[in-house]
């Protein structure tokens, strides 16, 4: 977290087990205001479980969650969205056959009388989100474009743009670059950097440190249910971080 500021989210001594398997063993995790945290670790380290506690998919067995200095329980996905936590899953939250303007406003339509849509307003707003907020420059994309025909990176951009537009304070990106080409990954990383520019926070979950390093402010390494490391970007170089991760995978410790 950024010093002197109270964190946006803090999770204290979080425990979670499924049956006899302890997936999270007393994890302390924080995200500061206007901070992008890279959450890295091997498969099965507990990254997904940790964020599912934030998005209301699972409930913790022990520990406390604070959001904006208030102790909270996140009992449902809707509740987490109400709080301003939004998850961007690859291609899962978009309606593929529909236009961009329908996608941006899905579930949160701008309504005129009798439930009719303010289509012009939605189009205009979508155009603004595309060009100004997200920095889409391609003339090929319009508010009337069908999502299905966008590239993977562009789809991610739309999902991130939508979350930002609706004032999510914390955006959770779960492997947002998975399966994307290098060029597309670059686009997604730019969109993520945009989250900071807009004054919001994000958790960026990935295996790939080379993608996380350039955009994150801090790195939290999760290993078999515990925090194995927590570094600010100024404290560690990309190579050192990679080296620590490799050592961790090989020997089970970073030293």
């Amino acid at each position, binding site marked *: 977290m950024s010093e002197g500021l109270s964190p946006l989210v803090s999770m204290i001594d979080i425990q979670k087990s499924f049956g006899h398997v302890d997936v999270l063993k007393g994890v302390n995790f924080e995200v500061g205001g206007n901070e992008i945290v890279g959450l890295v670790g091997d498969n099965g380290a507990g990254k997904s479980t940790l964020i599912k506690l934030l998005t209301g998919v699972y409930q913790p067995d022990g520990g406390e969650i604070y959001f904006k200095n208030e102790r909270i329980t996140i009992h449902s996905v809707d509740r987490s969205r109400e709080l301003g936590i939004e998850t961007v899953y690859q291609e899962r939250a978009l309606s593929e056959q529909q236009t961009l303007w329908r996608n941006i406003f899905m579930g949160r339509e701008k309504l005129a009388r009798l439930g009719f849509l303010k289509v012009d307003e939605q189009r205009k707003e979508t155009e603004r989100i595309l060009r100004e907020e997200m920095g889409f420059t391609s003339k090929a*994309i319009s508010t009337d474009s069908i999502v299905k025909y966008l590239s993977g990176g562009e789809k991610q951009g739309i999902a991130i743009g939508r979350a930002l537009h609706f004032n999510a304070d914390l955006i959770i990106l779960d492997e947002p670059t998975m399966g994307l080409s290098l060029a597309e990954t670059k686009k997604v990383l730019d969109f993520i950097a945009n989250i900071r520019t807009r004054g919001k926070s994000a958790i960026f979950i990935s295996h790939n440190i080379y993608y996380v390093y350039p955009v994150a402010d801090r790195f939290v390494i999760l290993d078999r249910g515990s925090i194995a490391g927590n570094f600010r970007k100024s404290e560690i170089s990309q190579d050192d971080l990679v080296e620590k991760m490799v050592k961790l995978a090989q020997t089970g410790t970073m030293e």
Partner: protein
Amino acid sequence: MVRTARARQLRLELSILGVFFGIFILFFIGDPSTFSRFDIYYSFMSTIPFSGIMALAITYVIIAGEMDLSFPSIMGFSGWVFAKLCNVFVNSGMNPDLTIIICTLCCFITGIIGGTLNGALVVKVRIPSLVATIGTMFFWRGLVNVCGQGFGETLVPVNETFLFKVFVGRIGGVLPAQALWMLFLTAGFWIVLKRHRFGSHVLIVGDNVESARMMGIRVSRVKMAVFMQMGFFASLAGILASLEVTYLWPSMGEGYLLRTLAAVFVGGTSVFGGMGTIFGTFIGAIIIGSLEGGIVAMGLTGFWTQLIYGVIIVVSLSIYSVFMRRE
């Protein structure tokens, strides 16, 4: 240029119009004298709306990613309720004008109950709609048979009423009112699909239930509403079809199922959900509805009808598939 919804829609609707004009050109060549006179169009206008209105309603069901096979039976049963009550009330001395109003409401309620049952089976009991509505299809048809014991009901007692004229009267002596109903409903379905939150939700739910749910759309409610409106419009079709001939046949609706679905698919709506066109369904309903009359007028026997239906469906679907493919 990333393909836009407008471009996709335009392309699809132009190919549907192409099929439509193709067929009517064939009709003209086949029998110029019949097709240059008003009579055959009059006949089309009086018969097509019954399945046409149901085709509009089932388009929403299909866009929402569901199926309903029971609407012809719901049409039959709610139509029977309508006709039976008309006779009961008029025989007990009620004014026919009042009778038909009350019976119409009862008929609508019956249709909505039928739709609600389908919706509940799909949403609450979680039976896939294709299967659930096979069940309700037999159920409602069976109910007509049991209640009516195979007898029809005359509707002559209400054929002088105001509402009768509203439903199936002849405007200016030539234009069947049901044709106007269908036009009006086409416009309504079109606007709601494109410009209303409900239409938007139907599209989104049919496209990807998971993402709809994640974005806070109440999927169960949308699906429920889609089945309920189907039931409602099936009951309206039941009233129109029985009033048109002032008689209720207990078999009313049988034979409408595949023709109605054919109208939707010839109209270019995707069987996968998430996409559909009301304009297409409107044209599709005219194509399917005019084939039988057209075939007979061209001097072929009725035996040809099914064969030609088959050809038209396969050919038009192939045309759309080819035209819709990305260049």
